[in-house]
């Protein structure tokens, strides 16, 4: 009995540890992911192809150039004065209260009202230069817009913004407010420098990452082609739901920062894209350049794949059909696509139509038929034949382009 109790206890411990480990780790099961499409109906569509080269699957690179940075401060810091680095004329500074952080009532109406009440009055903003010269309100501003003027622009409610007057040529200044704001109230400060020669350049080689694939990202800062070495840098992956994971970048010989490895992230439970977000600074002589940038990418599980068993084009009532076989690991709505080629007697191919079919599929092997409508089919001349190619597979439930 005692032996059995010990075995039970050990088993209980093991199970407890397993549950603990599982609950500590974020879910990575595609079964838990939000579904963008639960439609059960088979839907088929075919159309003429104009330029077949546009259907070739290719990587989806994306680039960004940033001449801006943003950071958060609290009311106490704003009343004492915060340091703002600038590296070009006409810098545009916007100030937005983070009303929702401290509101007990999270309704949009309440947050909107709270934001307006927390808006910073630009007439109470004071700018002090390194030489001690101080400017109050619009005396330092070539252009300003208060929160009411920006209310219809799409910016966060309560945002006010101004441009630093061109005559003020400094590399940094102190900004403070004499407004009575709560010490703990947070504000987002955004500095946009369209006339700055310093640009943070960021690129992703592919925005579509299926689990197990590598993500390649590069970040570098240039001043009109001259490389600026990056100093303190914070790089993070941010999920669609706001979860943050550190992204370890490494330096290459050119002074750029690189991420070039298989991504190990949990699958997001919220619809939308992941982002790689960078906050960094560079230094050129006594000029500090602060920059933020970010790029989005899709990170999804491999929920199904094409079964490359050979099939043939068949004549159907409505045209030509082709059965696409798929192996599905997780239930969802899957779409197959395929190009129809007209092949002449010399073997030369020309894509003439594309067909798409989607339906709900449970785990296992399944056939999804493509149908090319009769109206798209030319009469075959002697020696000509039709051929199928570039068969693709998409997961419409998780919005993954699988193959």
């Amino acid at each position, binding site marked *: 009995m005692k032996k059995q109790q010990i075995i039970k206890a050990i088993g209980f411990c093991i199970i407890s540890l397993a549950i603990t480990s599982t609950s500590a780790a974020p879910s990575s099961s595609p079964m838990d992911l939000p579904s963008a499409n639960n439609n059960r109906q088979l839907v*088929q569509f075919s159309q003429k192809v104009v330029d077949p080269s546009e259907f070739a699957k290719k990587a989806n690179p*994306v680039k960004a150039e940033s001449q801006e940075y943003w950071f958060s401060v609290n009311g106490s810091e704003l009343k004492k004065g915060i340091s703002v680095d600038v590296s070009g004329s006409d810098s545009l500074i916007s100030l937005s209260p983070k009303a929702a952080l401290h509101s007990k009532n999270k309704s949009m109406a309440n947050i909107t009202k709270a934001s307006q009440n927390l808006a910073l009055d630009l007439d109470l903003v004071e700018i002090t230069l390194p030489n001690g010269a101080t400017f109050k309100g619009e005396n330092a501003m070539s252009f300003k817009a208060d929160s009411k003027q920006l209310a219809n622009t799409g910016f966060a409610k309560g945002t006010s913004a101004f441009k630093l007057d061109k005559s003020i040529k400094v590399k940094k200044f102190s900004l403070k407010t004499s407004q009575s704001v709560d010490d703990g109230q947070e504000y987002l400060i955004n500095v946009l420098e369209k006339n700055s020669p310093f640009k943070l350049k960021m690129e992703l080689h592919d925005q579509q990452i299926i689990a197990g694939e590598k993500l390649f990202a590069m970040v570098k800062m240039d001043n009109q082609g001259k490389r600026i070495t990056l100093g303190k840098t914070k790089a993070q992956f941010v999920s669609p739901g706001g979860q943050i994971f550190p992204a370890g970048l490494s330096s290459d010989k050119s002074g750029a920062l690189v991420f070039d490895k298989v991504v190990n992230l949990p699958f997001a439970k919220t619809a939308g894209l992941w982002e790689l977000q960078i906050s960094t600074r560079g230094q050129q002589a006594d000029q500090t350049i602060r920059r933020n940038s970010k790029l989005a990418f899709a990170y999804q599980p491999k929920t199904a794949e094409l079964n490359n068993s050979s099939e043939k084009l068949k004549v159907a009532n409505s045209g030509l059909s082709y059965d696409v076989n798929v192996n599905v690991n997780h239930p969802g709505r899957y779409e197959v696509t395929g190009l129809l080629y007209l092949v002449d007697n010399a073997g030369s191919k020309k894509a003439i139509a594309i067909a798409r079919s*989607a339906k709900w599929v449970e785990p296992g092997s399944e056939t999804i038929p493509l149908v090319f409508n009769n109206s798209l089919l030319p009469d075959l001349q002697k020696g000509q034949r039709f051929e199928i190619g570039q068969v693709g597979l998409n997961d419409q439930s998780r919005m993954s382009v699988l193959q």
Partner: protein
Amino acid sequence: MRIASIFLAFFICFSSTASAEKGLAFVHGTGNNNDALNDYWTQSMVNSVVAGLPNPSNYVVINCNFEEYMWTDAAAGCLAGQLTTFINNNNISDLVVLTHSNGGNVMRWILSNPTWDARYPAIINSISKVNAVAASSLGTPLANAVINGTVFEQILGWILGYASDAVRMQQTSWMAYYNSTWLLGTSGRPALPVIFRNVVGSDVDSAFWDSDSYCGGYAYQLALEFTQNWLDSCSDGFLNCSSQAGAGSLWFYDTWRTKGGEPLSHHQSRRNCFNLDTILRNDL
């Protein structure tokens, strides 16, 4: 007998043609609209444009929630439902869709994903063209600016209190992803199945002494003049010209055809400013 057969054939042919109807759908931009007719477009704009239809009552003003991602039931699903009802109830076989701003993206979602929903193929087959005014096809740096520094947390919602999923989606690198995967019609991608042509707004006039600055509302012009600081020199205050012309084909830049060669700000391009309504009406 032969003459009777010819007459009968002619009658049948004419009857078939007469029963096919031309219709127009107004598709609004970002926002959750319950009364887009009055709030988004205005009655005078709609009345002026639909006067170009063979039957001026054959129009629908869409009211959907385009604060959501374009593929959701509330956005594309809602649009598909209202278009389907309109097409079926009015026997529409020649549908012209007029979109503004993000409405172009939601429409393009339907056109690019015909198998997503059983209603989509019939809608696509009914559409003769989409006239996309100030379309947000490549997104906008303004959406980047609105979202920058914000962290969406499911519990807290948007910390800065404004941004929506639609704004999030219109960030430039987000639209780059959707354009390269789920949406058709941009450079290097397969063409859309219907004509999708763009009207591009190229500037914002906000001079207080210029009466043109007051068309649509002066307060909007001032705000859009400021937001141009985040954009290229060719922009309508919300979108760069490159984004507006990013999908489909270019129909015209505002100054090419508007009265007095006036630019259309992002707000003015949904109003009967500078003969835009006349141009759209005559196109029908």
